[in-house]
């Protein structure tokens, strides 16, 4: 595959960009693959890439019902951070953040990872206790996360209102400088291109209708809208729809799928330098390279696969945004949308084997799966290749719901993240 570079762009500019080839090929499925990955989002495509790159497995198909990156990869607010509380979470998110830092170069695709900082606002004594617990835990783990005074926070985000007269005055903030954003579509496309280059089949518009198992109970392949495709291993990473896919193999998961909404404003000149989150007033906001304010709203309360939600979720979020940043009341919402997130009871992901042999699952990333993309994909590839979880993902296995070993980030992530 032709390498992307400034020189390639210049050369193509001279000849009307006629020389670019397809970023990934769209072949007809083979009869059988070593590995079928269900779900063509960042996690699934990434897992295919790392399987090919690090585990020498290239006879892989990534099967996607719609279009690549059309699920939550292309619908989220692109926040990246690793300042989680529990060891299991820090393991995976910090692993992921380290991969983000070199991802553009690794994929030869500019995913626009931009470490502009993620700031979490503290509004009361309880917030402060909780955030400082994070800050200290992160520091001893080796993750950057620092406590800022309100004045320091305002220096970093000049539009912040730190006056004491606010309904919920700011009494400090936690800042992870390495946190930031990336371009979501580019992540899917970059992985698809790099995987395709290593021989992985990327098959779109192919819906899984069933999971076939052999006499010994192990998976033998998947029934799809393009017919049966055999596979030695099947790995499911279909955010939002994991329960539906896994139920085809009679595996029940501790998940519920709910719509998560987000919105963007009209584009404006740069005014907002980083990502700001506030758990207490339920808001998170950043500004995209195009100039849109990107605002994450909450989840609707009921199970739904509809990719839409109620207006009250949007207005509630904007209440908080405008309370924190009153100058934005005249800014306009340009587009709102929803994605389907699958959520676990402890708001931590599940990655591991299932009761069905050679069937693997990566699910439950809830409202925060984008930031985990490279790390999750990398460790999922390890799991698929070795049949057992990598040390850094060992905490994410399904059995914790039986034993009670929950990774309860729920309290820390009361607001969608």
């Amino acid at each position, binding site marked *: 595959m032709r390498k992307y570079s400034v020189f390639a762009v210049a050369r193509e500019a001279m000849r009307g960009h006629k020389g670019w080839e397809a970023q990934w090929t769209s072949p007809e499925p083979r009869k059988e693959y070593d590995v079928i990955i269900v779900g063509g989002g960042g996690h699934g495509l990434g897992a295919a890439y790392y399987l090919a790159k690090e585990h020498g497995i290239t006879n892989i198909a990534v099967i996607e019902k719609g279009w690549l990156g059309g699920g939550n990869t292309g619908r989220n607010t692109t926040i990246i951070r690793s300042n989680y509380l529990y060891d299991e979470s820090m393991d995976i998110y910090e692993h992921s953040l380290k991969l983000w830092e070199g991802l553009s170069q690794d994929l030869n695709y500019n995913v626009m990872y931009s470490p502009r900082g993620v700031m979490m606002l503290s509004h009361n004594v309880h917030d402060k206790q909780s955030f400082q617990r994070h800050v200290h835990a992160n520091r001893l783990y080796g993750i950057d996360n620092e406590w800022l005074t309100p004045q320091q926070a305002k220096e970093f985000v000049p539009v912040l209102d730190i006056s004491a007269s606010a309904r919920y005055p700011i009494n400090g903030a936690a800042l992870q400088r390495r946190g930031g954003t990336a371009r979501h579509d580019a992540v899917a496309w970059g992985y698809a291109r790099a995987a395709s280059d290593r021989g992985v089949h990327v098959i779109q518009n192919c819906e899984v209708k069933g999971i076939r198992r052999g006499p010994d109970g192990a998976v033998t392949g998947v029934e799809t809208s393009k017919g049966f495709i055999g596979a030695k291993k099947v790995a499911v990473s279909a955010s939002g729809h994991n329960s539906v896919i896994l139920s085809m193999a009679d595996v029940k998961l501790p998940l519920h799928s709910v719509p998560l909404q987000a919105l963007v404003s009209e584009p404006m000149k740069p005014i907002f330098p980083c990502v700001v989150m506030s758990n207490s007033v339920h808001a998170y906001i950043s500004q995209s390279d195009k100039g849109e304010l990107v605002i994450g709203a909450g989840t609707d309360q009921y199970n739904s696969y509809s990719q839409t939600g109620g207006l009250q979720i949007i207005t509630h979020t904007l209440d908080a945004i405008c309370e924190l940043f*009153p100058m934005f009341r005249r800014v306009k919402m340009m587009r709102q949308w929803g994605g389907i997130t699958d959520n676990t009871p402890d708001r931590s992901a599940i990655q591991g084997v299932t009761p069905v042999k050679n069937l693997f699952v990566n699910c439950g990333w809830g409202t925060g799966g984008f930031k985990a993309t490279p790390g999750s994909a990398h460790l999922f590839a390890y799991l698929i290749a070795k049949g057992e979880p990598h040390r850094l993902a060992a905490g994410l296995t399904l059995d914790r719901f039986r034993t009670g070993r929950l990774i309860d980030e729920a309290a820390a992530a009361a607001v969608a993240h």
Partner: protein
Amino acid sequence: MSGANRIAGQGRLTPAKTARFTFDGKTIDALVGDTVASALLANGVHLVGRSFKYHRPRGILSAGPEEPNALIDVSRDAARRQPNVRAPVQEVFDGMKVESQNRFPSLAFDIGGINNLLSPFFAAGFYYKTFMWPKAAWEKVYEPFIRKAAGLGVSPTEEDPDHYANRYAHCDVLVAGAGVAGLSAALAAAEAGARVILVDEQPEVGGALHFDTSVKIDGQSGYDWAQATAAKLKAMENVTVLTRTTAFGYYNHNFVGLVERVTDHLPKPDKKLPRERLWQVRAKRVILATGSIERHMVFANNDRPGIMLASAARTYLNHFGVAVGRKVGVYTANDSAYEAAFDLKRAGVTIAAIVDNRDKPGDAVLTEARRLGIEVLTGHSVIDTKGKLRVSSMSVARNGGGSARSIAIDALLMSAGWTPSVHLFSQSRGKVAYDAATGRFLPGTYAQDCLSVGSCNGTDGLQATIEESLAAGELMARATGNEGGNKLELSGENAFEWTGGMAGAAEGAGIDTTVKAFVDFQNDVCAKDIRLAVREGMHSIEHIKRFTTNGMATDQGKLSNIHGLAIASEVLNREIPKIGLTTFRAPYTPVTFGALISHSRGDLFDPARKTPMHAWEEAHGAVFEDVGNWKRAWYYPRSGETMHDAVNRECRTVRNAAGLFDASTLGKIEVVGPDAAEFLNLMYTNAWDTLKPGRCRYGIMLREDGFVYDDGVVGRLAEDRFHVTTTTGGAPRVMNHMEDYLQTEFPHLKVWLTSTTEQWAVIAVQGPKAREILEPLVEGIDISNEAFPHMSVREGKICGVPTRLFRMSFTGEAGYEVNVPADYGQAIWEAIWARAEPLGACAYGTETMHVLRAEKGYIIVGQDTDGTVTPYDASLGWAVSKKKTDFVGIRGLKRPDLVKEGRKQLVGLLTKDPNVVLEEGAQIVADPNEPKPMKMLGHVTSSYWSENCGRSIAMALVAGGQARLGQTLYVPMPDRTIAVEVSEMVFVDKEGGRLNG
């Protein structure tokens, strides 16, 4: 006066009513009723903005909200500034200030225009392929450059002084759009007696009748009929007509969001008026009469100022009386554009030529064009244009090749046909269907109780539209139970039926990869970009959209989507429906955050709950802290005291004399009924049937999974009546949790729950002098130690007011909690204070409460526990009944990981240096020299300077904590490592004798 291009006798504005505003500092004379666009055009101003990426000069393309180019910054004053306003939508008012955007230093000379020259490098998606090295340069160099160049307007920087309003509304029939179709439908529904809401985004009803002067309805001009009909509807009690109101979002179950622009057109609005009003409408039925939007033609350099939609030019002429040029060309693939030429010609404008991409236009328009002496070039295309800041000529060539002819023009009108506005239909989750015969997406399968009528439904022809709309209005009214009215009839006639239309690049857009034939004007997406996207493997329309940004500008693809799709279809050689359509998302046009939040700002952002004693606390200098929605007195600093000083004093005073504390925010639930004790047995780990009336007990509530959910003291007032208290933050969820079990798991129990949190003001009187303070005030209760021991409750009176008096303590001192009906709270507090103060007592706040309870090792659920802590972890195993066979959490508690060795347990921590106060949240390790990542044993949950102990104290969750008593552990901080000893949690009065003092 109001512009050189205003044609006398044309348009509907009143020449005597003038308004004046500035555009980039230059004064513009306008008429009341003008939009910024019509006023600028009247004054010959075509150059209005710059495009997003290439900074190309842009003019006014449309006469409606689909405008992608003419975006302006409008301000009334410094704080009332709105970026990204569509010039054809903004009505002028005297004194308004309009600025162009996205240009530096000026609109006519914009340095960013260099991007246009560099555009070969800036092909779609180029940034994915470069800017990767050196690694740090993306964030530090490339990205800031891109961000600065992108964006359009400048964000407001001051708080918006305007206010906004909200109205929930309900109706039988909501009609969106008040053109011929919407008015007819609304009329029929209203006559039948239905509750009708009719909305239209324009200042006046009429829709396309604004420009289409050839229409006659019931013998009147269409526009006059529309105004008369609206007047008739407004006079009906069952009808609400809202103009300047956009139906922006169609949500689940016929919930439609409208935004009404109330003051943006007024020179001096009444301060009481909201700037905008959000309407949240629940309609039993919805009729969509949203019309259609004219498409532009895609050809080389189709974006110069002066090039606009044909219907827009008609609007400017017929409604505003403005000629958009003096020598005007027309480029079309549709009959409708001919009528623009006819109207302009009749108004005295020269029509240079009508260039028709089709070989065979409609006969009627062709005949009329000839009659008017207009040159028509059929089977021709405009293959290029010239003109730097305004179009000056067009190159025309016969389709299929041949030499080009240049025709001088000062405006070019174009029409590629009409795109039905199915946005709201699609938002309602209806499925559109592609009509290959007419090349349109039309409403297919409905998902909600709605109907589309008129041109948004693909209905062509005036009479057909009227009949369809009347029928729909009546049908929807009948369906919602309205019996009145007679069948309505209306007759309409118009001069021409329109045929034709095309989608995609016309000839001259060129397969040439250097030609800029714009599909999406604002985002500078050209036909070649879409072809490039397909070449790079982007075969889904969503990929094409995201790769090229086609349709992602502020107009959200109203003009560009169909063209983009058609170009992709051509390159991929697949039919349009096989490529799909991007999803229509709300809002139809952008909506201000202010309107969406409406009243939720300032005091109405979130209720600030205050206790009955708040005013006293405020008057006595309390500093407040937010706890949930509550404002709680945090500490009471005296003159010159720091928080630390105040808390130390309060802590000393309570233990040495007494203190008054406002505990009103604690949740309270009255549990009443013969099975009350049995119910509580199930809800709490403790046993309640053994509790005698008049006694209290501390209870632990678990979730089913065995983790601590809430705690509180429960008093038994009678056999069948309990007074339950909860944490402040936990009150609503505990109530819901209890109701859930009562209603759905234990419905056989005869017991009822009532929240009484706010019935009672609660005054805690704590300390060795507590009894002395209260004794003379209390009537009917013997509060002596013998008659009223620790953990008792009695009902009686205090200062003549009924009270539930608790003997209980969260300080470790002898103490009482005086519950009185809330309206009496402040008076009783003052009465107690009048006795307490002379005895040396103080008022204390939540911080002192926290310190005092920590000195006694009492936990705070949510601070010392975090949803992963069992009662055993918190040393509260004694409160878990061993005899009960069931309670919520009984099974969860026994799961393998909850009974495992080494769980984190709550213990005390004493720093080796007694003067060092640990930071709450600090992490604890066994080996301070271990490299990162370090093994963390737990964290500090509570930590204070204890004035009473003369040292710091702390509580912590530590792995295997109980087994570590006496061990030395370490708390590594950024600047030092603090050594601590694991201890018991009780730091003061370990024997508990003071409780009974």
